[in-house]
Structures are given as structure tokens and as C-alpha cells.
């Protein structure tokens, strides 16, 4: 049991920010090289002419998930020490819907807009200005939203637990679904007229 390294004290806390830059570098490179700096490429997922978002997103998710589960099995990693994104039912759904509308209008999500900014996309820069305004609006309106923000707290609940199956069974099913989607996406891509962008 050695990982996670910083919470376990293997690597001193002070190295945290150094790793942040290095890991962010990999993150940015992977996103940009896949084409996430182009909003029209990203949005293509919804019209069926380019499924790059779906492919990259799910490949990344299952890679990390399977990796984590194997590492926890061989005992290198303590799964219970990982930060599990807490589930706030109401705010997760409503926040997700608001983000979904923003996504379809702006064509970026925060991570990809940083990639867009790095290569000089002016629309990405404006998107980021919008993000800052949105955060400001939320913070100012927080007293009104506080109840929603805190409601339905289920803590760091795992999806596999709430479905009543083991982590590995869920991971397996998700992988099968993801691979199925990849084939489906490739098939649809062939059918749909290409869009030049």
C-alpha cells in the first residue's frame, strides 16, 4: 500500500504543485492533440459527424478506472483514500443541465477552453470570460441557491454500491458499453455527411 503517494506521505506535500504543472501539461497535450481545442470538432459528437469527444472521454475514463482497480487489487493503492467526488443529487442534476445548455451554446467545457486559449482561439477566451462572470453570478446569488447547493447530500457514494453490484462488475459492464459505443460511433460517422471545419 503506497499510493496515493501524497496523502500517504511518500512524497512531501510541497511537491504537490510541481506535479500539478507536470500532470496538467500531459492533460493539455492529450486534449489538444485529440482536437479538443476546436469547438466545432467537440460539438460534432451531437450531430454525429465527429465522435472524438465520446471516444477520448470514455477511453480515458475506462483506462483510469481499470488501472485504479488493478492497482488497488495488487495492493499498491488504497482505494478508500481516493477523493470520491461527493454526490449531491439535486445540484448534480440541475448543475449538469445548466452546464449542458452552456456546452451546446459555447461549444467548450472549461478544460477544453483552456486548450483553445493556448492555441489562440478567441472564442475560447471569450468563453473563459463568460465562465468568470458565471462564477461571479453564482457567488453573488449564493444565498438564494444555498439550499439547492447543499441538498441531497449522499456523500462519496459509489455508483456500483447504489446499483448493488461490485466495483469490478460495474467496471466490466461500463467497458463493454463503452466499446459498444465506439463501434456504434464509427458506424454513425460513416453514415453522416462530413462537415468541414
Amino acid at each position, binding site marked *: 500500500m503506497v499510493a496515493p503517494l501524497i*496523502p500517504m506521505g511518500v512524497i512531501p506535500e510541497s511537491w504537490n504543485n510541481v506535479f500539478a504543472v507536470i500532470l496538467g501539461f500531459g492533460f493539455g497535450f492529450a486534449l489538444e492533440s485529440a482536437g479538443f481545442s476546436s469547438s466545432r470538432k467537440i460539438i460534432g459528437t451531437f450531430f454525429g459527424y465527429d465522435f472524438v469527444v465520446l471516444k477520448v472521454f470514455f477511453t480515458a475514463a*475506462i483506462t483510469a478506472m*481499470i488501472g485504479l*482497480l*488493478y492497482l*488497488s*487489487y495488487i495492493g499498491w493503492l488504497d*482505494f*478508500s483514500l481516493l477523493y470520491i*467526488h*461527493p454526490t449531491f443529487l439535486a445540484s448534480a442534476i440541475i448543475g449538469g443541465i445548466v452546464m449542458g445548455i452552456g456546452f451546446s451554446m459555447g461549444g467548450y467545457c*472549461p478544460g477544453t477552453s483552456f486548450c483553445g486559449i493556448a492555441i489562440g482561439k478567441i472564442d475560447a477566451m471569450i468563453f473563459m470570460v463568460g465562465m468568470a462572470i458565471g462564477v461571479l453570478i453564482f457567488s453573488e446569488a449564493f444565498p438564494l441557491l444555498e439550499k439547492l*447547493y*447543499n441538498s441531497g*447530500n*449522499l*456523500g*462519496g*457514494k459509489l455508483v456500483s454500491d447504489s446499483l448493488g453490484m*461490485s*466495483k*469490478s*462488475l460495474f*467496471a*466490466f459492464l*461500463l*467497458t*463493454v458499453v463503452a*466499446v459498444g459505443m*465506439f*463501434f456504434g460511433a*464509427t458506424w454513425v460517422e460513416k453514415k453522416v455527411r462530413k462537415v468541414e471545419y
Partner: protein
Amino acid sequence: MDRRYTLLAILVVLLAAGLLIIPNKGEKKEIKPDKLLLAINDQARFLSTDAITERIIGGDPTLQLIDVRPAKQFNTYALPNAVNIPLDSILSPSWTELLHQPGKDKVFYSNGDIESDAAWQVCTRNGIPGVFVMKGGLNHWYNTIIKGAEPSNTASGTDLDLYSFRQSARQYFTGSGDQETAQSGNDASTQKPAKVSVERKPAEKSSGGGC
């Protein structure tokens, strides 16, 4: 090209299927009975009221006081910056994050130390590290810190030091080092919580980091 993707897909699915074969271990991280017994026999989990008072006054950021009494008692009087987790909801998921905060000493207290020790046992059994019990609970805290008796003239130097520490602590909590006013201040216990800043937004606080 397509055949390579098919191969890759099969490989990934096989890798995921491998997860099904390997035994599922450690889903629930409960510690073994013999380890629990060892931990129960270890008196190091008890922290004295003086040590805790010193940390409260010093504003020690690694101290997380947890009040396991019912909410009603907590609202009447509580130690500064304590969080109220009634004993019956100690396992509720809303508190997992608070209890798992790394680098913090989670100190349970109740009126005596029966409930707080029970909370300590539940947490220890669940593998939560860094949990402690305030020895003697609030009653003892009140008797030593707020009402601490003056040592006799023949008392040793350390006793006198302790007394003067307690006296300054009393001043910190009640606004007066004088025992009489301290006591009258405590009789009207309802006015107390206003003075003591009680913070009650624990779990959300750190989860706000989010994305």
C-alpha cells in the same frame, strides 16, 4: 484498420473481464478484532481537557472537535469550532468526508466519555485514523477549566503552573479570570453560544473545491 480496432476492443474487454476474476478484497475496510482490542487497550486515545484547551486557545488548525451529544444540547453549549455529529448519525455518509480529513485530529467529546468513546470505537473499527476522545468529557472540562479549584499553598510548582494556565484559559472562555463572574456567566448558559463561534458547515466546505 478495422481489424486492429476489433483486436484492441477485445483486449480492453478482456482486461476488464480480468477484474471480475480477481477476488474482491477489502470492500469494507473493517479492522480485525485483535487489532481493535489492542487499540482499545491503548490509553493514548484519551486527550486531557488541558491539552485540548491549550490547542483551542492556540487556534491549532489540526484540531477537529466533534460533539457527539444530541443537537439540542449542542445548541445550548458547545466548545468553540466543534461540529455536532450526534452519536446515532456518526456513520451517515454526510460525515465521512469530515471524519476522513487527513492531517486532522478528530477529538470526540460528550458530557462524560461514554458516548464519545463509543463513537471512537465505531470509527476505529471502520478504519478511520486519527480519532481521539476528550477524557472526562464536557463535565470534566467544566470542572477543571472553568471551575478549576485553587491549589493549596503546599502544591508543587507544576500544579501551580497548571492552575495559572487554567485561569488564563478561563479568561479566554468566559471573558473573566475571576471565578465568581465566571460562574455567574455560566449560570445563564443560554447566552453562551452567542459568544462562542460555533461553526457548522463541515462536509460541504472541503467539497466545494470540486472540479
